[in-house]
Every structure is written in structure tokens, then in C-alpha cells.
């Protein structure tokens, strides 16, 4: 499938377009600015890793299912080919 070529071209064009749209910069002070409340406690006691692990597991589960579905599609394609 030549679909990849289109995707590549489109994404390159799009990122070039995007590069022109910037407005207001994020400075490095924005990273050390302690007056803004962030979920620091969650990071400090490590519970954020639990969250990431859970989201990641669910994602992997869905990917596994997608791969299984693809194998079924492949089997159908073969069956159809053998018939003709």
C-alpha cells in the first residue's frame, strides 16, 4: 500500500505549517515556577507510576486485541484467495 507515502508527505507538510503558527513561548522559568500548583505530591510518593502502569496495561491489552483481529482478517483473506 502506498498509503505510507501519503502519510509521510502529509505529516511533513503539516509540521511545516505548524512551525509557522507559534505565538507565545514557554520559558525555562516556567519549569521552576513554584507558585503554580502541580501534582507534586503524587510524584513525590510515587503513586503516579501506578497510574502510568495501569494506563499502559490497558493500552497493551487493546493492542493485543488489535493484533489478534488482524490475524483473523489475514486468515479470511487467505480463505477467500484459496476459494478463487
Amino acid at each position, binding site marked *: *500500500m502506498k*498509503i*505510507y507515502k*501519503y*502519510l509521510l508527505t*502529509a*505529516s511533513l507538510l*503539516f*509540521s511545516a*505549517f*505548524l*512551525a509557522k*503558527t*507559534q*505565538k*507565545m*513561548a*514557554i520559558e525555562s522559568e*516556567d*519549569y*521552576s*515556577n*513554584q*507558585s*503554580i*500548583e*502541580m*501534582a507534586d505530591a503524587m510524584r513525590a510518593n510515587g503513586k*503516579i*507510576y501506578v*497510574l*502510568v502502569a495501569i*494506563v*499502559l496495561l490497558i*493500552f*497493551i491489552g487493546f*493492542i493485543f486485541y*488489535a493484533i489478534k*483481529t*488482524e490475524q483473523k*482478517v489475514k486468515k*479470511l*483473506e487467505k480463505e*477467500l484467495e484459496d476459494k*478463487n
Partner: protein
Amino acid sequence: MRKSWWKIIAVILVAYTIIAGFLLEAPRLVILNETIRAMHFHVPMWFGMVIMLTASAIFSIRYLRTGNLKFDIYAVELVNISILFGVLGLATGMVWANFTWGEFWSGDPKQNASAIGMLIYLAYILLRNSIADRQQKAKISSVYNIFAYAALIPLLFILPRLTDSLHPGNGGNPGFNAYELDGRLRMVFYPAVIGWSLLGLWMAELRIRLNFIKSKLNEDL
């Protein structure tokens, strides 16, 4: 394995997005706070959608030039997955907006425009399903698809910029736009865009192959 390398890349990139998107340091910005991380999940939905709709419009043109139904199937399945991406983009955008702009739907020009864009593409599906003849269905809907694309791009990228929008980078609205300047966000954001787009393309490919099987059974192809 030869043909599945890009799927592996998709999975790796999205997994990286989930890990790095949540764990890497993010800029501490007013109003946004921790929600800036939604940028790695909400924005790629729209990027993926636009990329896939671009491909779809190209396939519609190719169908009209060649009359090969294969291209029409590419076009319609790319629109299908794009609609899913768009709906997810709208839904995640609404949740994000509720906590940063104060309400789920504030009639923001970009919000309105993307909703209109979604309706235009839903009409494409409706149009297709209302025509029985296979070639006619493909021909009419291909023409419509090209017009829909021509309407979508100004709706999403030009009209919201002509007026004040809450979306960053539009109208007189300040706000963040890290794409150009902030390397740390970009380090997650670009892989996220590529990863989610490839993932969408994978789902489209599955549907395309199913559609091929169906078309062969109906002896359309």
C-alpha cells in the same frame, strides 16, 4: 514482519507518549497546571484526523481519475477512522475545556468549527449509504469528499484565526504554544502525533482489508 514495522513503531511511540507524557517534567503554567499534559493526547487526535482526511481526499481524487474502486474503499475507511478521531478530539477537548475555560462548550470558534467539520463528514457517510449503485456511490461521494476537505481546512485553520478564540495560537488569545520553542514538550508531542496517527492508520488498514473481503464476496472488486 516486513509489512508490520510501522505498526510496531506506532505501538512504541504511543507507549512512550503515555510514559513520558505523564512522567516527564512539564512547564508550570497558570490555569493549565498539570492539564498541559493533555496536549500529548488531545491534539494528536486532530493532527491524526487531518492527516488521514488529507490521505482520504487524495484517494478520492485518485478514484475519480482511475475509476478503481480500491481507492474509494481507502477513502471511505480513512474517513471512518477520522470521524472516530474527531469525536475523541471533541470529547477530550470538552473535558479539558471544562477545567480550564470553565465550561464544556463555550462556543469557541474552533470548537464550533470542528463540530461543523464533523457534521460535514457524517453527511459523507450518510450520502454514501443512500446510494445503492456501487460505482455511482463511489463517484458522488468522492466528489463530496473533496469538497468536504476543502471546507474543513478553512474551518479548522483559517476561520478561528480571524476572530478571538480560546484555543492557543488563535486570534488575540495568548496562551501556550510550545511547538516551536519548548524542546521538552516537543520531545513528547511530536512522537505522540506520529504514534497516534500511525495507530489510526493501522485501524483504518484493518477496516480497509475487511472492506476488500466484503467487496470481493459481493463481486464489486
